[in-house]
């Protein structure tokens, strides 16, 4: 019979990946738009 202390904590790697993708995708979009605009300094 198992008790609480013998149970290993749940694997949260999926949740960690989801959370970082959740914030990473919009941030990547913002950075992409920024880089597009910033190149105007050298081409504009």
């Amino acid at each position, binding site marked *: 019979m198992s008790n609480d202390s013998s149970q*290993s904590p749940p694997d949260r790697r999926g949740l960690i990946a989801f959370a970082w993708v959740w914030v990473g995708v919009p941030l990547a979009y913002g950075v992409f738009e920024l880089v597009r*605009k910033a190149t*105007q300094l050298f081409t504009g």
Partner: protein
Amino acid sequence: MSPPVAPPGWSRWLVPPAALSVHLSIGQAYAWSVFKPPLESALGLSGTQSALPFQLGIVMLGLSAAFGGTLVERNGPRWAMTVALVCFSSGFLLSALGAATEQYWLIVLGYGFVGGIGLGIGYISPVSTLIKWFPDRPGMATGIAIMGFGGGALIASPWSAQMLESFGSDSSGIAVAFLVHGLSYAVFMLLGVLLVRVPRTEKPVSGGPSILEGPQVSARSAVRTPQFWCLWVVLCMNVSAGIGILEKAAPMITDFFADTSTPVSVSAAAGFVALLSAANMAGRIGWSSTSDLIGRKNIYRVYLGAGALMYALIALFGDSSKPLFILCALVILSFYGGGFATIPAYLKDLFGTYQVGAIHGRLLTAWSTAGVLGPLIVNWIADRQEEAGKGGASLYGLSFVIMIGLLVVGFVANELVRPVHARHHIPAPREAADVERQQSESA
């Protein structure tokens, strides 16, 4: 409301995205200018009037961070993130109603007043929790979150512009855009509310430092120490110097090279502003993480000392070399961002983790002051120089000298920072933490 304690095995790497979901949202405030021209033409407003929601929002940010900090510490990060979500999103919804009914006061009240409370509470909501989860790397942890505030404008600026293009720039189009903003940000911030947890033990990193290590000072005592006011001056001077460039970046680079063989076009100036935003954001995470390695006092020596040197280089040789001008401006802006992001870790070093979020909230009044001081200096001097018939780089020479002076004042204030005297420490940190825990459990 009791703070949400992490279950066994909860990863601390879930806390930075929780913080980012809030900061990336509220950072939208710096993209308010996208709404200005459509509001002006749809509701017949002047430029000054259309800036009101943003200005009130920033004032409310400072006030709610300063006065709400203790509540945030007491009720925990989930409560704070929920308040931020509700206020920030309902600010947009009220603004949508205001635009649909062409009642501008509703937009000022909604976005500025209600949304502004969301900005302040949201800004400080994850700081204390991040520092507790990352006692070994507090600079990096708060750098990630505060970088998000800079990143929020990068996302919102093109996104909002695209939305106005799709829905139209008349009052009903603006109303729909506000509505979509309010609902989208509510969903996006919900991740933070659901994920944020406070560590269940004093040592969230196995073998790492304890979150109650070192002196612990309450927010009430902290504001009575010279260290708090030294850091207030440090932040105020550093931010003023950064805003000095940020505020007039586009006209500044155009004026500097107007009479040269390589004048700067309008689109190139816009590219320069974008590049400054990138430096600002990179400085938040890069310099703040570096402070974990070289120490907080040393990193502020760099921000303030090297910052003054960069201003001197621009003043002396800026108009003769475009790469030098751009490089110096980028470094100054990276220091500006770094200064914002490193201050919570500096506060943690001096006052401990006990009420660091509340102390940070009170210190943000330096930001509000700098937000007025920096642009005032640069704009006022540039206007007077223009009236005196000057042009080009000479419009800004005096401003740069003043900025160097401000940075020197900040440098001296940083040198005066010493460890907090033992009479300000709370008697027994663990005892105080136990009392806090009991209070929150019985609430």
